[in-house]
């Protein structure tokens, strides 16, 4: 009896970006609870590590927020499609400044991350925050130390709002940061920011809310990023069918959980396209 059960149990192993991890971990849990025959799991190892593992064929699916290039996908025989959108927010540790109170502009954030603005009472920051008493505290920038889709989303944003950023540093899962400390994945960045006075970092929104770290506001700017799923074309048919079933379930029934965790589900037209293209 037990052996029959074991034989029919399908385990789908996924890993990758920490950006969608809170959501994926909830989805896989809910799905595995409701479907006895399938066990899906997702490990938060970072986008770059996820890509490396799916290329090596050690995973059934991977998550990344920095998409692979079409050329790479073709060469490796991997399908890639978006799952959900999420936002990246600047987080700060400034004594006496509550969440959402500090106002920054895209350009100022870029100049802080470029190391040009170095103290919190800089005139340009003061000009946007006339009612705050900004301390004469050095700014400590905190960024990711591992290859990260969150970094890709964040640096794409900085490249869009600052020409200097675009020409000097650019965007990517790993960039050469001019200043700052390096944390491990989203929780590591949150941990560093919460422990270093005067620090500023960036993280996926859910992590900031969970860790109760004050968020800075950038008016009229939402730093949005898509997170992608990667599936190998040569995945065993039985596993592929189960994985397709799971992904369809995420699109059809996972929207509420996604919104609860502050992610943004895809439009129905996008979902339909993904279903017909990748989940037949």
């Amino acid at each position, binding site marked *: 009896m037990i052996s029959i059960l074991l034989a029919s149990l399908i385990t789908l192993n996924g890993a990758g970006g920490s950006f969608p991890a809170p959501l994926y971990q909830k989805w896989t849990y809910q799905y595995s609870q409701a479907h006895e025959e399938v066990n899906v799991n997702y490990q938060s*190892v*970072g986008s*770059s*590590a996820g*890509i*490396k593992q799916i290329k090596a064929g050690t995973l059934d699916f991977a998550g990344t927020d920095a998409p692979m290039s079409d050329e790479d996908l073709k060469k490796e025989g991997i399908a890639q499609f978006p799952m959900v959108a999420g936002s990246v927010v600047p987080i700060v540790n400034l004594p006496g400044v509550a969440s959402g109170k500090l106002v920054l502009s895209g350009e100022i954030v870029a100049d802080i991350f470029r190391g040009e603005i170095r103290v919190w009472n800089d005139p340009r920051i003061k000009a946007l925050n006339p009612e705050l008493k900004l301390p004469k505290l050095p700014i*400590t920038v905190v960024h990711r*130390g*591992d*290859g990260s889709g969150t970094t890709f989303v964040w640096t794409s944003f900085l490249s869009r709002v600052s020409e200097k950023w675009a020409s000097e540093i650019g965007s*990517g899962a*790993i*960039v*050469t940061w001019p200043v*700052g*400390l*390096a*944390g*491990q994945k989203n929780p590591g960045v949150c*941990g*560093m920011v919460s*422990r*270093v006075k005067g620090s500023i970092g960036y993280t996926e929104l859910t992590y900031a809310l969970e860790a109760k770290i004050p968020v800075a506001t950038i008016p009229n700017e939402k730093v949005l990023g898509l997170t992608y799923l990667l599936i190998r074309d040569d995945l065993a048919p039985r596993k592929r069918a189960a994985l397709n079933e799971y992904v369809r379930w995420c699109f059809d029934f996972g929207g509420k959980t996604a919104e609860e965790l502050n992610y943004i589900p895809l439009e129905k037209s996008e979902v339909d396209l993904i279903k017909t293209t990748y989940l037949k």
Partner: protein
Amino acid sequence: MSERVFKSLTFAAASLTVVLAASFLIVLWFSGFEAWKTFGLKFLFTDVWNPSSGEFGALGALSGTLFTSLLALLIATPLAFAAAMWASDAPKWIASPLSRAMDMLAAIPSVIFGMWGIDFICPHFGFSLFSASLILSIMILPYITAVMRDVITMTPDVLKESAYGLGATRFEVVKDVILSFGKNGLAGGIFIGLGRALGETMAVLFVAGGLNMIPSGLFDGCTTIASALANDFAEAEGLHRSVLFALGFILLMLEFAIQILAQLYLKRGKIK
């Protein structure tokens, strides 16, 4: 017959460790060969670290490794010497439980030190070279103390007593008798501490700040070879991966050198 079997078995076991050590070196060398070929000796003297453009230099991590380890020694050595002096001279009923407590410090897994450091050291000193050195100094303290304790106990009582007999003060006995008698053994203890500090990974990864560049101040973030390997290895491909093996090779050579020095001094100090 059985003795011959036993002999060859033990010989095989003993040579296995040597073969293992040698094969580690060989694997590290060949896996890192692409890095050495690409950058040459310049690899040792630049601190660029740019995985996206494929430019790498070892100096950032190497300097972080040396700075944190040496600063840790600077903090730990006087403490260890004082503790060892006290433990070797205090009444047995208190010296022996306290010595054992110091040895217990060595049993704490390094990741625990890291967790403690993040919450109790970093809020004061940031994620920095200094925080890493402080954690390292606590971690190597029991090793240095243990060796120094043995060295100091081995100073013949006759020597000490005759110095006291000549009117030497306690300080003079320490300075002129114990230090000069045991200097090789004490140096051996320091090298053992250094060896451990150089290779420490988790605790440093937690508190150093993870920046692969030459630190310009005590409170700058930095990284060490061991923690850079732990950070990057899971996702590194191609040249980046080869560079990490080259870093591993450098670390292993450093450790070998320190080990040899430690053995040499301990032997001269007649302590095994």
